[in-house]
């Protein structure tokens, strides 16, 4: 059974303090590793898709990387508006469902 685990569960940063969020996965025949951002009471907003180990993608202050067992979401010089829950999810080679981790709740203080 596919499994995705995110750490830490919660992370408090000062504005400008860079850090990384971890996503460990056991997904049979990974067909994609996805990162989403979710604001309270709203649906997840798509950020990145990574397909193979060594791949990196960037968007503003966010950079996602992928290894054979983990993915990292690096946040450089975060701002208060980056505060949200960040979700990662894997898709296997047997279907189309996303298996999500529990999320990391990021709080950036000014």
């Amino acid at each position, binding site marked *: 059974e596919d499994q995705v685990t995110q750490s830490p569960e919660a992370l408090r940063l000062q504005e400008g303090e860079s850090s990384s969020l971890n996503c460990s996965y056991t997904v049979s025949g990974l*067909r994609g590793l*996805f990162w989403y951002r979710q604001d309270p009471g709203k649906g997840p907003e798509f950020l990145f*898709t990574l397909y193979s180990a060594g791949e990196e993608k960037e968007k503003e202050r966010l950079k996602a990387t992928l290894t054979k067992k983990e993915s990292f979401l690096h946040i450089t010089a975060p701002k208060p508006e980056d505060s949200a829950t960040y979700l990662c999810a894997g898709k296997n080679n047997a279907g189309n*469902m*996303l298996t*999500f981790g*529990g999320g990391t709740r990021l709080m950036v203080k000014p």
Partner: protein
Amino acid sequence: DAGVTQSPTHLIKTRGQQVTLRCSPKSGHDTVSWYQQALGQGPQFIFQYYEEEERQRGNFPDRFSGHQFPNYSSELNVNALLLGDSALYLCASSSGQAETQYFGPGTRLLVL
């Protein structure tokens, strides 16, 4: 370009009742997936519809059923509601075999 829309936004039901949630996919998308998200947890896959048929199903009981219409919109039905069915229900749409799923704002269901 309209994104994924869901209705209603909020719903309160009592145990044993039945509920129907609705989803319209993003323009150009033909595949709809439904997820249940309990408070403080990640979404869990319920099922996916493509070409008006259930293509894949997660570990949810038969009380959860769905339908997809010719215009690609979809409904999620839950019968015999339990307190544990209280959650945010998310609809996601995608295009054919494309990997990325785009989510709607969700329907918050409270079962009393």
